[in-house]
């Protein structure tokens, strides 16, 4: 059993479990699955600055902050006790492309060659971590949700705006990964 748990899980186990989060949260207390709102609650709690968008009772939505804290704890538990020590397997075409950018460390799911403190002081690292993070936060709120709120919860509830948002997420990702990212990674 432990041996199985330590292997990377296939999509046909992970996907349905992620999908079950939707009814799980609804049945636990009428909560609509979504993660990016936590970022807004942090703004409302720490720096509302008289901005109307952050003037609401964030404490009423604090379940969402407990949920994301749980996600981080889940990440910790997995890294500490359930992780597979072997290197990450990556599609050969991707590995050969990445090697041209000097990305060769496959020990972690988060490439150590790109996401670390010293790299933050380089243009490449700054773009990936700081600008990338900013786009995630700005874009998700502008779009009204992220992959969880739109792609999973919204599509589960058959919402057309969520389908449009999901298509836009994917289009943005394809454009960035294929047109711009090769140049950023070459920096």
């Amino acid at each position, binding site marked *: 059993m432990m041996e199985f748990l330590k292997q990377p899980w296939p999509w046909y186990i992970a996907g349905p479990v992620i999908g079950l989060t*939707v009814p799980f949260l609804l049945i636990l207390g*009428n909560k609509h699955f979504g993660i990016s709102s936590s970022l807004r609650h942090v703004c409302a709690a720490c720096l509302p600055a008289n901005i109307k968008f952050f003037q609401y009772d964030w404490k009423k939505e604090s379940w969402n902050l407990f949920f994301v804290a749980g996600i*981080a704890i889940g990440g910790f538990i997995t890294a500490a006790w359930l992780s597979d020590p072997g290197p990450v397997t990556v599609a050969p075409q991707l590995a050969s492309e990445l090697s041209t950018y000097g990305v060769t460390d*496959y020990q972690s799911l988060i490439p150590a060659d790109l996401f670390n403190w010293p790299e933050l002081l380089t243009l490449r690292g700054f773009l990936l971590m700081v600008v990338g993070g900013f786009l995630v936060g700005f874009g998700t709120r502008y779009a009204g949700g992220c992959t969880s709120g739109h792609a999973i919860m919204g599509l589960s509830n058959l919402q057309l705006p969520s389908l449009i*948002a999901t298509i836009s997420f994917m289009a943005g990702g394809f454009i*960035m990964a294929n047109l711009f990212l090769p140049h950023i990674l070459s920096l």
Partner: protein
Amino acid sequence: MKKTFQNPAPADTIELNTDFEVRSLDTVCLNESHLQHPWWYNLKYAAAGILFGIVLVKSQVISWFRIQEMFRLQSFHMYGVIGSAVAVGMLSVWLIKKFQVKTIHGETIEFHPKQFNKGNIIGGLLFGFGWAMTGACPGPLFAQLGTGAWAVSVTILSAVAGTWVYGFFRERLPH
């Protein structure tokens, strides 16, 4: 953390904003419950988050490499994860509506339609750019941090900053 309402607005203003801002334009990630519970009731959501976080890591959804494979059509994995998650979610919501399933506290489960606005497209594209760069959407960012990738804290803070800047410019952006 600072005190919440440093600029106390009249109670009715807050109520109004809650209705307009949270309810109609951003009907995601919401607390639809009308019950008042002590804070520790929220621990059940932390437990749900822990399970969710474990799945995100074990299925490699938090992997920067997996996201690159997805956007380069080099692997089916992420399509399988998202596709089957949506299929199970759809079936669950359909069943909940059909049988009018109630919460464990006996409340009726509520759904609200979302309204389309241009932000779904413009914001969606910007989000997609960030997703491909960081190799993570918001959920995986928190899970990555948990696994000990401390530099990701910068990405999360930056995402909070992005959300704040959106709030600041919201009235002037096309919607």
